[in-house]
């Protein structure tokens, strides 16, 4: 078992990234905190990971696996019925910043079904290429490409022309 200082350092270094990734998957800040807490506790109790240089990817994988488990769970499927994740973005963040940062793009991305959303997140947010996404998510490269095409089609239907141009240019 690692010591508390190492754990604290890991939380400081990777905590914010993992919280954001969990939020992108779950669209629920409280659930994201629970998931990330659980990830660090598991890591603390069983740090069988030697390649610290890839620790970020390792913890990210743990986080998204737990997020997917949560999304498959009944508590999410049936009880998390509302659309208030959009409201939470608008009530918790500064309105001017949101306007400036084109949050319409994020709302559209976060509104995608998870299998398409994660491709967009890894491509644009993590800046992985198709091959890296395929390896990370244990999918074939063709599947990743197919989902990317579908994701873009779904986004095009939702975005204004201006925002669609931004997305399609990148």
């Amino acid at each position, binding site marked *: 078992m690692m010591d*508390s200082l190492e754990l604290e350092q890991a*939380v*400081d270094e990777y*905590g*914010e990234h993992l*919280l*954001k990734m969990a*939020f*992108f998957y779950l669209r629920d*800040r*409280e*659930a*994201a*905190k*629970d*998931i*990330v*807490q*659980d990830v*660090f*506790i598991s890591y*603390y109790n069983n740090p069988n990971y030697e390649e610290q240089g890839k620790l970020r990817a390792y913890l990210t994988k743990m986080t998204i696996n737990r997020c997917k488990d949560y999304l*498959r769970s*009944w*508590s999410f*499927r*049936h009880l998390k*019925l*509302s*659309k*208030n994740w959009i*409201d*939470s*973005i608008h*009530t*918790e*963040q500064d309105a001017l910043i*949101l306007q400036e*940062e*084109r*949050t*319409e*793009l*994020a*709302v559209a*991305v*976060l509104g995608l*079904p998870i*299998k*398409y959303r994660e491709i967009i*997140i890894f491509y*644009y*947010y993590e*800046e992985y290429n198709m091959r890296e996404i395929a390896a990370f998510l244990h999918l074939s490269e063709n*599947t990743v490409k197919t*989902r990317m095409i*579908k994701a873009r089609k779904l986004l095009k239907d939702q975005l204004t022309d201006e925002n669609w141009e*931004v*997305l399609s240019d*990148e």
Partner: protein
Amino acid sequence: MNEVKRSLEAAAGNVSGDKEEVKHRILSGRREPKRRNPFPFVATAIVLAAVMFFAFNIFTGEFSDKQSGAYEIDETYYDLLLLNEGLEHPPGSIMRYNLLLQVLYADSLIEYAKTKGYKEDAKAIEEEAKEQQQTFYDGFSAEELQSLEQSQLETFGYTYNEYFEHIIPQTIRYNQAVNWLVKHPPENMTTHREVLDSFMQEHDKEIVSFMKKKQITTPSTDTNYVDWEVLVTSVEEDTVSAVYDLDPELVNSMSPEQLEASNQFARFKVAGSVEQIKPFSTVTITYDPLSYPIEQAEQSKFFQDVTGWK
């Protein structure tokens, strides 16, 4: 930074406070993830409390002489809910109650919305369910689908088709009715408790019959109130504002607006004197978790029925 990333960063916002909270929870020895927020819709406590009330009233015969309307509990839906829980839930188990109340709670809201002018669009619901199903299946190879189905069956005990045919449409029905109620709040404040009570009174015969058929029995308690430990953030006249499971240091650093926007915030209307309740004190409030206004489905709750605190 690309525009999509910039936009996602903005939506995620500053999570440094969340990180500190998580770190504090881990390092302070709270090694298990905290319990989920008890305030949102259909938290376990709400279901439990409603069950207690329901069971007590049904079996004291209070509603037995009332006339029932045309109502049929969706048996397939209920059975799938039971299957979904995975474990054995023998006749008389509390889970059977909880799930029935979950069904009744949603049905009561839909029916109430209809009495206020909501018109359910069955075709739109069916189309949305089909669209969700199509989106879900789209892009998977036959092998992937087979593997998914296997995993689904092992985990939940029913197929994705059953999920999309029976569970998703019910969820959409509920969502649409709630959205309508949020946009069209009743003129006079009506609480979820009142809606559920009225619904159960009207359909008591169908409910009792269903309970008998499904071997659902009553729990041995007659209360519909729950206790909850909260941190008081402010007290104004008869209203106590409070948060649940937030670090006091974090609460101190948040503005009233930030606190109110938190998922862990709620108000309680406390009968009698509240002078002894002080901000930043921790109190246990005994309240009816269904006593909040019908239009507050997606925002901070204001619980109207508080019987005590300590």
